[in-house]
């Protein structure tokens, strides 16, 4: 019987998709271990979202209020989440290993004297305990980890879980916590926020992605990809090699250290298919590879392969599709 606390991170007004994953994972864990899920929320939207986390399966929602918690601030969040974890006397803390999770997991675990495990994609129940499953070695393998401490902080790999399903008939308790900020803890301060220029279509949400790699040989190749993507109503992605070469901005990178995408169609052009790149497309429904090398590992992940120099295929493909589609 374990008590699972989920940190419900809110983006703007609504719960983040990582939080919906964490809530689903938490519930699955609770069902398997005979425990309960509770959630902790903070910021101005916490109260209205508390009902929602209950509909998603939490039996208790801790609403932590203090005007200073309105904006994410790492030191305050570490301190307040620790406070609630202890108040709730929870055993497992689950959070999305998203941008904020990457700040928080190691610090929370250390402060709580708990074990820490990150990039978790699943768990396996062994007797009365859980083993945590996560990819290792750039997604070339999976490892199953046991925990040697009483408590554990789990960072969930983004996009590794189904989203929680809301059921408004669920009931639960909302607990308001007045959180007093110890004044010596605010250490870091936001100076400026720079919005990235390229945000017309987020890779994460795209249904069709045409991605290019080092094999494109330069920026010109990406113009061919852009025409195809425009025609299909999709967007352009890239491998790290193409981003590092400066052919496209870093925010187009797909993979373990870039965007994790789940399009219906992913066309990989001049990309070899390194495990770190494939880590970003695990959930792509259809993968088409265009690569000059028949032995490129990408052909082990693609369902349709074209072995050719992309320069001979891509313009003709775009032309042909124009005739068919327009």
């Amino acid at each position: 019987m374990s008590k699972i606390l989920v940190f419900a991170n809110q983006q703007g007004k609504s719960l983040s998709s990582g939080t919906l994953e964490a809530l689903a994972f938490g519930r699955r864990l609770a069902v398997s271990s005979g425990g309960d899920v509770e959630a902790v929320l903070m910021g101005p939207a916490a109260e209205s979202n508390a009902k929602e986390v209950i509909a998603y399966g939490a039996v208790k929602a801790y609403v932590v209020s203090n005007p200073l918690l309105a904006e994410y601030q790492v030191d305050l969040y570490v301190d307040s989440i620790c406070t609630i974890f202890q108040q709730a006397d929870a055993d497992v803390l689950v959070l999305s290993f998203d941008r904020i999770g990457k700040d928080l997991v190691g610090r929370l675990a250390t402060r709580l004297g708990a074990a820490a495990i990150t990039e978790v994609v699943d768990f396996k129940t062994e007797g009365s305990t859980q083993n945590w499953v996560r990819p290792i070695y750039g997604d070339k393998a999976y490892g199953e980890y046991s925990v040697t401490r009483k408590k554990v902080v789990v960072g969930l790999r983004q996009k590794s879980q189904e989203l929680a399903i809301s059921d408004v008939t669920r009931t639960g308790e909302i607990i308001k916590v007045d959180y007093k900020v110890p004044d010596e803890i605010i250490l870091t301060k936001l100076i400026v926020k720079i919005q990235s220029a390229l945000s017309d279509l987020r890779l994460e949400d795209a249904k069709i992605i045409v991605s290019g790699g080092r094999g494109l040989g330069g920026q010109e190749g990406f113009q061919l990809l852009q025409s195809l993507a425009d025609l299909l109503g999709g967007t352009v992605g890239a491998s790290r090699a193409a981003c590092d070469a400066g052919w496209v901005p870093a925010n187009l990178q797909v993979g373990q250290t870039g965007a994790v995408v789940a399009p219906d169609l992913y066309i990989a052009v001049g990309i070899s298919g390194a495990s770190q790149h494939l880590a970003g497309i695990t959930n792509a429904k259809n993968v088409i590879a265009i690569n000059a090398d028949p032995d490129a590992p990408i052909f082990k992940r693609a369902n349709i392969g074209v072995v050719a120099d992309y320069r001979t295929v891509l313009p003709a493909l775009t032309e042909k599709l124009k005739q068919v589609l327009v």
Partner: protein
Amino acid sequence: MHIIVCLKQVLDPEITPRYFKLDPVTNRPDTSESDLVLDSFAENALELAIQLRDKTLGATVSAICLGDESSDDILRRALAFTANQAVRVWDDDWEDLDGQAVGYILGQAIKNIGGAELVLTGYQASDIEEGLVGPVLAEELGIPCITLVSDIEIDDDRVKATCEAEDGCTVVGVQYPAVFTIISAESNVPRLPKVRDIRLARTKPIQLMEADDLELDPVRSQPGVKLERAYVLDREVACEILPGNDGAELANELADRLVALKLV
């Protein structure tokens, strides 16, 4: 100003999947077909540390690594980058430490060498990718931690760090001492060390620090997680290679297939 950069030795992440094997008993990767290299984000951190030192009067860089003898290679690399000092922390009793234990022990070692104004780590090591050592170090040292940092600017007693945000980037101000976890960026592409510096690095000392030199809490120097099982992933999909004699034929074939599968 003292800058410490934490370096980890890892299995070459670019190893061809075909050569990647795990020992079924130890769960460790077979290293006979591949090299051990300096973790790539840690190398970005090293480059940034050297650049910051060269811009700051009187600053020094110490490279520190928790690892067995084979890790001397990456410390020599740091010396060839012109790091001022190299420290290797190791004890034969340490086995299969996790990021938390490594963070704890490194924290004790950093205190032992007198602390630092800036502590730089990579953001996630390319072997297990725990992404823990930086934040854990910050907790252990009781100082702030800024994660996913691409650039640092020193500004009197304060540091301005540019870091990745959900959508774009932010610039954060923090008083040092502080920990920064570094990602790759155009400004921190690792240099090619000069031949002369590589040669000099061979003869420079590497300080060894062992468990007895540090005041270690026996519980906290134990890992919190233990790898019970590991298996290589086989995600192979049956791929249909399209027929065609030239680009035009292949393009036609592919277009037909996309339409037939209702993908466009």
